């Protein structure tokens, strides 16, 4: 009798051939051995000439934090001890399914009973000129790391194309190895698949602080070579970045070539069922090369589950794989970053956002139907695994919903799950406001002393008056102390923030905030990327605070300011060219007439501001219309913007028998000085040559009424829904003084008013005396006028000319046009 490990006599082991000596292939073999060590004779083919190692630890090897030996998973002894034949450095070239055998590059033929494809993925190479130059490497295996280390040994400049997980890890390693690193990323947000805009901004800032140059929204056009070796990377916009090595890390693609040639079902990846079986029952596949239930994975965690299901199946105890929920951590020392699940939000999803600017923390948890759907954490990732666990188990979080964002320790605290209760439990000397060192006891006594609103607390004891991160705590204390009788504070900017417009304006300047995502982080925005109310406001505030430095954010502009024309109810646009002071000439009139005919504009109308308005222009025709108007010397009339609109004039002393001054000439001068300036709201000016006031200067934002002895300057008039006559600001004697006061008033309004607040409601809110006092102070007019003129240096280039020359052309062009073939629907049906 002959029993071999409980098998019937004469049992012949099945032959299992594994293509791929990577993490998936070896793990699958380990799982099978753990279940039934005697079932298969195993042969593993590996293209790399080495044993199996932990590929995800290549980043620490590059960074010098680990050696290769430390990341080896299975040594040669493991293969020997388990009777596994390792064929390394010999790539399998074809699968012959008919005869059940594989053929390797060396000519070696290996028959199989079961075949396991674990070919992983290939780095994606962007098809740009120069991609094959010496010095262009990918980041996939140890050979790539060796090439990078050799380049780093020479020092110099490295360019990493791709700001995803792998690219940033490569950049970090090369940076630590002493190279000057530039990361080029096509998208505006680093790691956009894992991070939202807010977390991406924090990451970018930290990497820049470490000396890396991060170029987002940058498109690689060409890799420039010299003597066959890489020398630089040229971007679409012409920028050239010197490089002695270029790492291409833009993504991976499932390696499906072998499977495809063998006639297996392949879409993006090799199609497998829940037991990792391909369209051929004898062929299995696992890892990054497969597509399961429509998903391809590029992370390590799903491999373990796949390999478990595969081993259960081949040992005849099928359990099945149901797909994986994945999470990501960036392996860059000192940067804590965690991302899991779906963070794109959507129907019925609720974003819970917490930001702590002083600690550089951003946390966002996405909840839907009382379940955690995803999480993005930056700066403090201690609770990452807890959120991930809640998410995977699909646990109902309604009981801990209020405290969820504060983390496990807080939310699991039973009674402490109510934030008010948690605050009540704090001792009197617990610090509430870190910025101003205010304790709970101080806040409570301040409330008891009569400060019954958030604003009152802020002005009395300064709690939450700085960064605002303790606003929630102060509100809890107000609620606890007053028993829910909290007076509502001043109106906040929008639902995304607890700050008012005034607070935000002040803080932008005080804290030198220079980008929209930075404001949102520092001021604890409760939404990831704002809303249609706050984004245009923030864009304006930054433009006003940092003239010449801030780069206008087109996607935060209302359509009219993005398209430089006025949208009409049918989706077409109206175009108003500038006519200085309302003056025109035959050349301009001809050009306008020609445009009307050429573009079939259905209507032309004289506006209330003495300009001509051409209606019915399609968005794709706008650049051509502007080119024609530019050719006649006309520029944008800004009839569409929160900006200086028109300076309306009467004919004045040059023609009018009553005129006292040259109102037309002054109007033209004022328009030349003020055109192109962005404002909190639209801004209209008029100059009348005498008190008969034919230019209607007393219902304008700034009005000049000429009199014999000089110029009366009026402000804050409005001819809109609520008619308001102007207030007299002052009287001056010369044109120059009138011009200076106009510039100063405009700048004060630009810096003081809230976005979408016209001069009339602004002056009613702050009081005429406040405006007069501000401008009457010693040197104030010179100061504000100089700031206005400085800002205007950057504003007075015609946006139409730039568009006509091709800037932002995508805004005007259709993607394409779909023209279905006759009968196309029949084909599809």
């Amino acid at each position, binding site marked *: 009798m002959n029993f071999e490990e409980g098998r019937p006599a004469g049992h012949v082991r099945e032959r299992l051939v594994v293509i791929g000596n990577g993490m998936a292939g070896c793990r699958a073999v380990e799982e099978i051995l753990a279940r039934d060590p005697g079932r298969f004779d195993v042969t593993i083919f590996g293209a790399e000439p080495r044993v199996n190692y932990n590929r995800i630890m290549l980043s620490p090897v590059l960074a010098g934090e680990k050696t290769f030996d430390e990341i080896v998973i299975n040594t040669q002894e493991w293969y020997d001890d388990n009777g596994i034949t390792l064929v390394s450095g010999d790539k399998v070239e074809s699968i012959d399914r008919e005869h059940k055998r594989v053929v390797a590059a060396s000519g070696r033929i290996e028959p199989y009973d079961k075949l396991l494809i674990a070919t992983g993925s290939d780095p994606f190479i962007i098809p740009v000129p120069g991609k094959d130059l010496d010095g262009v490497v990918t980041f996939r295996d140890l050979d790539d790391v060796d090439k990078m280390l050799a380049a780093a040994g020479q020092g110099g400049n490295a360019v990493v194309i791709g700001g995803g997980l792998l690219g940033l890890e490569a950049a970090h390693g090369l940076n630590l190895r002493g190279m000057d690193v530039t990361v080029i990323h*096509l*998208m*505006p*947000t680093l790691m*956009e*698949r894992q991070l*939202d*805009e807010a977390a991406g901004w924090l990451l970018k800032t930290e990497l820049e602080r470490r000396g890396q140059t991060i170029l987002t929204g940058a*498109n690689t056009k060409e890799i420039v070579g010299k003597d066959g070796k890489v020398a630089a990377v040229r971007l679409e916009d012409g920028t050239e970045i010197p490089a002695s090595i270029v790492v291409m890390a833009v993504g991976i*693609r499932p390696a499906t070539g072998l499977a495809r040639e063998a006639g297996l079902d392949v879409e*993006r990846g090799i199609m497998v069922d829940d037991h990792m079986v391909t369209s051929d029952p004898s062929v299995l596949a696992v890892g990054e090369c497969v597509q399961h239930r429509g998903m391809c994975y590029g992370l390590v965690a799903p491999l373990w589950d796949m390999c478990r299901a595969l081993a259960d199946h081949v040992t005849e105890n099928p359990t099945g794989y149901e797909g994986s929920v994945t999470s990501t951590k960036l392996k860059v020392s000192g940067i804590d970053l965690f991302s899991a699940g779906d*963070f*794109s*939000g*959507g*129907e019925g999803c609720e*974003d819970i956002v917490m930001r702590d600017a002083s600690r550089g923390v951003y946390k966002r948890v996405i909840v839907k139907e009382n379940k955690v759907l995803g999480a993005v954490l930056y700066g403090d990732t201690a609770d990452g695994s807890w959120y991930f666990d809640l998410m995977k188990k699909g646990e109902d979080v309604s009981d801990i919903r209020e405290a969820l964002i504060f983390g496990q320790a807080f939310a699991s605290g039973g009674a402490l799950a109510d934030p008010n209760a948690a605050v009540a439990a704090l001792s009197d000397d617990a610090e509430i406001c870190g910025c101003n060192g205010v304790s709970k006891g101080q806040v409570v006594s301040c409330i008891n002393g009569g400060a019954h609103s958030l604003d009152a607390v802020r002005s009395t004891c300064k709690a939450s008056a700085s960064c605002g991160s303790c606003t929630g705590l102060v509100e809890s204390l107000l609620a606890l102390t007053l028993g829910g009788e909290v007076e509502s504070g001043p109106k906040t900017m929008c639902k995304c923030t607890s700050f008012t417009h005034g607070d935000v304006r002040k803080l932008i300047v005080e804290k030198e905030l220079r980008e929209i995502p930075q404001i949102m982080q520092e001021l604890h925005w409760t*939404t*990831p*990327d*704002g*809303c*249609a109310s706050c*984004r*245009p406001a923030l864009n304006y505030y930054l433009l006003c605070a940092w003239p010449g430095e801030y780069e206008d954010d*087109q*996607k*935060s*502009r*209302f*359509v*009219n300011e*993005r*398209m430089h024309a006025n*949208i009409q*109810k*049918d*989706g077409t646009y109206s175009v108003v060219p500038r006519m200085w002071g309302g003056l025109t000439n035959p050349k301009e009139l001809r050009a306008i007439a020609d445009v009307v005919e050429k573009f079939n504009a259905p209507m032309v109308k004289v506006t209330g501001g003495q300009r001509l308005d051409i209606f019915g222009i399609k*968005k794709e025709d706008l650049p051509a219309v502007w080119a024609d108007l530019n050719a006649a010397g006309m520029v944008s009339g800004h009839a569409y913007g929160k900006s200086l609109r028109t300076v309306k004039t009467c004919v004045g002393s040059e023609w009018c028998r009553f005129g006292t001054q040259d109102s037309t000439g002054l109007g033209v001068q004022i328009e030349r000085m003020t055109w192109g300036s962005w404002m909190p709201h639209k801004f209209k000016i008029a100059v009348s040559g005498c008190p008969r006031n034919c230019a209607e200067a007393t219902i304008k934002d700034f009005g000049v009424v000429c009199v014999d002895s000089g110029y009366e300057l009026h402000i804050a008039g409005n001819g809109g829904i609520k008619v308001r006559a102007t207030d007299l600001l002052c009287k001056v004697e010369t044109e120059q003084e009138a011009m200076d006061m106009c510039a100063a008033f405009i700048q004060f309004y630009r810096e003081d008013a809230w976005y979408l607040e016209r001069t009339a409601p602004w002056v009613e809110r702050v009081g005429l005396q406040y405006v007069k006092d501000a401008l009457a102070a010693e040197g104030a007019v010179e100061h504000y006028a100089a700031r206005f003129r400085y800002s205007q240096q950057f504003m007075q280039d015609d946006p139409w000319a730039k568009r006509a020359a091709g800037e932002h052309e*995508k*805004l005007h*062009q*259709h*993607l*394409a*046009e*779909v*023209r*279905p073939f006759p009968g*196309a*629907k029949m084909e*599809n*049906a």
Partner: protein
Amino acid sequence: MIGNWLDIGPVTQIEPGTARTLPVVGGEEIAVFHTMRNEFFAIVNKCPHKQGPLSQGIVHGDVVTCPLHNWNISLRSGKALGDDEGCVPTIPLKVDAGRIYLLRSAVIGGDDQAEAA
């Protein structure tokens, strides 16, 4: 089947936070959106309120605000949000290997959307 999907070009042709348009001869113009969270959506370019061109609105999260009267429309469902009621048709879209695909039958206004599966 790839034949059911219409390739409308690379993802890079739409800047994040913006939309571009796709006129359809004999059908409704389509707006294709790229959000700042890097998702893509296609909906008919007509607000359910007064037919405003949604492609021209400000995009925030997965919502677009119509440029005419500030209705907020979910890009995911096409539904008007908040107190407003209405719905704009959505067109199934997928992104594969850096290219955008729309479901052909939905683009040309067919009623055979079952093919999406």
